C-alpha cells in the first residue's frame, strides 16, 4: 500500500468503501424471507445457510486470484461458484460470497486481501443486479425457465467480467503506470471466454442446487470434471517441462563430442526465435522453430568424432562426411511426429541463397523459411563463440560479416530481422555468460597453444568466413 501512488490508494479506498455499503445493505435484505409472486421461495435460515456454504467453498477453491501473466488470464476454481451464487442467493447474497475472497488462504498482504474481497463483492453484486434486471429467477429454477434464463445469465456474466476488468484496469494502470488500453486488451478481452465457460458451470450448479434440489452435492459433481481437467492439464504442463529439460540435456550430451560447441544449439534456438518473432511467425510455428534450433546439429553424431576435433586440414572426403550431418539429423528425428515443419529447417540449414550450400544446393525461395532463419542464427552464434582457431568475435563484427554475406549466403530479410531484434534485446554470447562454457574440455582435446593459427584448421562448419573458402577449395 505504501508504494502505491495517491490515485491508486484513493481507488482502493473507494472500492472497499462501496463494498462495505453493499454488504451493510445486504444484511437488511437477507433478513427477510425471499418472496416471489406472493410465495416464500427461501426462508431466512435457508438463505443464510446457502450463503455461508457458498462463501466457504468459494474461499477454499479460490486459492489463487485471477492473475495476468503473459497472455494468460488465470481464473481460479472458485469462479463457477461465484457465477452460480447470484442465481442461488440473489445479488445481495452474492456480494457476501464474493467478499469471501478475504478469507482466501494465499500469501497476500492484508490490504490486498481486503481489496480482492471488496472487488469480488462489487462484481458479484453488479452481476446479480443485472441478472435480476433481466428477469432472472432467484433461488428457483424450473423446466419452464429454459432456455429463457440463458439471456440474464449471459448478461450477468459479462457484467461480472466487465466490472472486474475495469477495477483491475484502474488499479493496475494507476499503480504500475501501464496504459489502461494495454490492460484492457491484455486481460479483459482474453478473460471473456473463460468467464462464459465458467458461467456455464455456474448455471449448471444452480440448476442442480435449486432446480433439482440436491444442494451442495451439485457443487461437488459440477466441479469434478473441471478439477480432473485441471489435474490433467497440470500433468501435461509438468510433462512438457520435463520434455524440454530432457531434450536440452540430451542435445548437450551430443555436444560433448565437440567441446567448442557447448550451448551452441540452445543459443541458435534462441536467436532463431528472435528472428521468427520479428518476422511475425505464429506462436505454434515459433515453438517448432525453437525445437528445430535445438536439434539442428544432432546429425553431427553421425560424423566421426575424429573429424569434428581434427586439427589438420580436412580432405574432400572428410568434408563430404561433415556435409552429411543435416541428412543424418533428419534420419534420426523423423519419427518425432510433432516436429513436422522443423524437419525442413534441420535438413536445409546449410543451404545458401546462391545455391552453393548443402545438402541439396537449393536456391533462394526454394529454401524453406525455417532453414533460412536457422542458417543466420547458426552463423551468428558460431562467429560470436570461441573456436579452436580463433577467439570469439564481437557482436558488431559478426553483424558486419552477416551483412557482407547477405543476399549471397543469407536471406536479407532474416539478417535484418536478427539485427533489428538485437537492438532490442542484448545478446548473451557464449563467451560472456555460459556456465557450460566454463567447464573446460580436457587439455588434450585442445590444440597446443599457438599451434592452431598456422595451419588453420578444424574450422567450424557453421562459420561463414570459412565456409566460402571451404567450398572453393573442395569444389
Amino acid at each position, binding site marked *: 500500500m505504501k508504494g502505491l501512488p495517491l490515485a491508486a490508494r484513493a481507488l482502493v479506498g473507494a472500492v472497499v468503501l462501496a463494498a462495505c455499503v453493499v454488504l451493510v445493505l445486504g444484511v437488511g435484505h437477507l433478513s427477510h424471507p425471499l418472496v416471489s409472486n406472493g410465495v416464500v421461495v427461501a426462508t431466512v435460515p435457508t438463505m443464510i445457510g446457502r450463503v455461508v456454504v457458498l462463501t466457504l467453498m468459494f474461499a477454499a477453491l479460490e486459492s489463487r486470484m485471477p492473475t495476468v501473466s503473459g497472455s494468460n488470464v488465470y481464473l481460479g476454481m472458485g469462479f463457477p461458484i461465484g457465477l452460480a451464487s447470484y442465481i442461488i442467493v440473489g445479488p445481495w447474497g452474492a456480494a457476501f460470497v464474493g467478499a469471501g475472497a478475504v478469507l482466501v488462504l494465499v500469501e497476500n498482504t492484508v490490504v490486498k486481501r481486503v481489496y480482492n474481497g471488496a472487488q469480488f463483492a462489487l462484481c458479484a453484486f453488479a452481476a446479480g443486479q443485472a441478472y435480476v434486471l433481466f428477469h432472472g429467477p432467484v433461488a428457483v429454477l424450473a423446466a419452464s425457465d429454459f432456455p429463457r434464463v440463458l439471456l440474464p445469465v449471459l448478461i450477468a456474466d459479462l457484467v461480472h467480467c466487465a466490472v472486474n476488468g475495469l477495477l483491475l484496469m484502474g488499479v493496475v494502470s494507476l499503480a504500475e503506470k501501464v496504459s489502461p488500453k494495454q490492460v484492457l486488451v491484455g486481460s479483459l478481452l482474453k478473460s471473456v471466454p473463460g468467464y462464459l465457460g465458467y458461467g456455464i458451470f455456474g448455471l449448471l450448479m444452480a440448476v442442480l442446487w435449486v432446480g*433439482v434440489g440436491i444442494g451442495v*452435492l451439485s457443487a461437488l459433481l*459440477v466441479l469434478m470434471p473441471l478439477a480432473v*481437467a485441471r489435474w*490433467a492439464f497440470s500433468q501435461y504442463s509438468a510433462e512438457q517441462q*520435463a520434455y524440454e529439460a*530432457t531434450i536440452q540435456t540430451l542435445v548437450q*550430451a551430443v555436444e560433448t563430442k565437440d567441446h567448442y560447441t557447448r550451448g551452441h544449439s540452445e543459443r541458435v534456438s534462441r536467436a532463431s526465435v528472435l528472428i521468427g518473432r520479428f518476422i511475425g511467425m505464429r506462436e505454434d510455428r515459433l515453438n517448432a522453430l525453437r525445437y528445430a534450433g535445438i536439434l539442428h546439429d*544432432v546429425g553431427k553424431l553421425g560424423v566421426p568424432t575424429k573429424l569434428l576435433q581434427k586439427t589438420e586440414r580436412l580432405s574432400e572426403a572428410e568434408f563430404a562426411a561433415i556435409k552429411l550431418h543435416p541428412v543424418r539429423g533428419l534420419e534420426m528425428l523423423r519419427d*518425432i511426429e510433432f516436429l513436422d515443419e522443423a524437419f525442413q529447417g534441420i535438413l536445409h540449414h546449410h543451404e545458401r541463397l546462391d545455391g552453393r550450400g548443402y545438402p541439396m544446393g537449393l536456391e533462394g525461395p526454394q529454401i524453406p523459411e525455417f532453414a533460412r532463419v536457422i542458417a543466420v542464427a547458426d552463423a551468428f552464434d558460431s562467429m560470436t563463440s570461441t573456436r579452436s582457431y580463433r577467439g570469439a568475435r564481437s557482436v558488431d563484427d559478426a553483424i558486419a560479416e552477416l551483412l557482407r554475406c547477405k543476399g549471397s549466403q543469407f536471406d536479407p530479410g532474416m539478417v535484418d530481422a536478427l539485427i533489428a531484434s538485437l537492438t532490442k534485446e542484448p545478446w548473451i554470447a557464449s563467451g560472456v555468460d555460459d556456465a557450460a562454457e566454463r567447464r573446460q574440455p580436457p587439455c588434450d582435446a585442445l590444440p597446443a597453444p599457438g599451434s592452431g593459427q598456422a595451419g588453420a584448421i578444424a574450422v567450424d562448419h557453421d562459420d561463414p568466413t570459412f565456409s566460402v573458402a571451404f567450398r572453393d577449395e573442395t569444389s
Partner: protein
Amino acid sequence: MTSLVRRLDEGRATMLLLGTALVLVAVSTVLALQHPVQQATIAVSFGAFIALGEAVRVTLAGDREAAPLGAAAALAYALIGRFGSVPTSHTAWDVIAVTAAASLIGALPHIAAGRSPRLDVLARRVLTAGLAAALFRPLYDAGHGPLGHLEMHQRNAVLAAVMVVVAVLAGLFDAAVAALVRADRDRAPFLPSLRSEFRALIGLSSAIGATGVLIALAAQVMQLWAIPVFVVPLMLTQFSFRRYAGIRSTYAQTIRSLSRVTEVGGYTETGHSSRVSELALGVGRELGLSDPDLVDLEYAALMHDLGQLSLTEPIPGGATVMAMPDEQRRIAEMGAEVIRQTGVLDRVAVIVERQADPYRRPHETADETIPLASRIIKAANAYDDMVGDSRETGRRLEALERLRLSMAYDYDPRVVTCLAHVVERSSRLGL
C-alpha cells in the same frame, strides 16, 4: 486360421469378455425387437450422444482407448429417472441395446478411415453401462420402485447419492475389466494390472461418473438440454487428457530418436537400443511392473548406452557385454550422469547407473538395492549383444543358454526366466 487360433490362445479372458457382451447384446436386441424401446425420443437422443462420443474417442497415455462422452451418455441413460415430469420406463436390456447399437454406429467413421475400434473397449463400455442399469433400473422401475418414490417425494439429494454409488461401482467394474484384458494381453499378473488400470483411469472415470449423474439429474429440469450442456465440461477434460497423451508420446518418440545417437555415431549396432527396450518392456510387463515403472524402464533401456558417447574409440560392435566389467560400469555411470543432468529423470538415471552391477557376487546374497529395471536391462542388453537382429534359432538358443549359465551371479533368475518366455513367444509369432 492359425492367426485366429493364436488369438484364442492368447486371450482367454478377452474372449470371455467379448462372448459375454455378445450374448447380452443379442438377448437385448431380441427383446428390443419384440417390445420396441419405450420413449423412443429419449433413447434416440442418448444414443446420438453415445455415438458422437465414440466418433470423437481419444487415445490416452499408455495406449488406452477411451470415449468419455460416450461412456458418460451411456451411464446417464442407465441412471436417468424423471425426464421433465415423465418417469422413464426403459429397462436395463434397453440400455444395453442402445449403448451397443450407438457405439457401433459411432465407430463407423473410424472403420471407414481404416481405424477399426478395439472390440474389447466397446464390449467393456456395454458391460459397464449394463451393470449400472442392472443396479439402478429395477430399483427405479418406471417411477414405481423405491428410488422412484424418493424422486416423487422430492428427496433428490438421496437419489443423487444412490446414483453416485452406482456410478462408483460401475467405474470400479470398468477398471477391473480393463485390467483383465491388459493382464491377458501382456501376460502380466492380474493385481499389478488392476493397480495400473485403476491409477490410469481414476481421473477420467471420476469425470465420466460425475457427468453421467449430472445429466441424469438435470434431465428432470432441463430435459434434452442436459446432455449437450453437461457434455461441455467433459469435453474440456477430454481435451486435457488428449494433450497429456500427446506430450507423453512426443516424449517417448524423442527419447527413441535421440537414443539412436549411439548408433549414428557408430558406437552401437543399428536398432540395438530399440530392440533392448522392446525386450525389456516385454519382461517388465510379465513381471508386473506398474505403468510409471514401465515408462522408466523403457527410457532407461533406450538410453542405456548413452555413456558410450564419452568413449574416444567405440567398442567393436558396441557390445558392452564384451567390455571389461570396470569399463561397463564406467559407461553406465557416465550415461547416468548425463541423464541425471536433465533434472527430471532421476529414477531413469539410477536404473542406467546400476545396469552393469552383477545380480549377486560369490559368497554374498543378492544385492536388493539394484532396481528390478536395471536387472532387466542387464539381461536384455546381454541377450541382444549376443543375438543382434539375427533370427536364427540356434543363436537365440545359444544366447539363452549363456544367460542361464550366468544366472544367479550375473543375472536375476526371475528375469532370465521371463526373458526366455518373451523370446520364445516372439519367435513363435515369427518376429
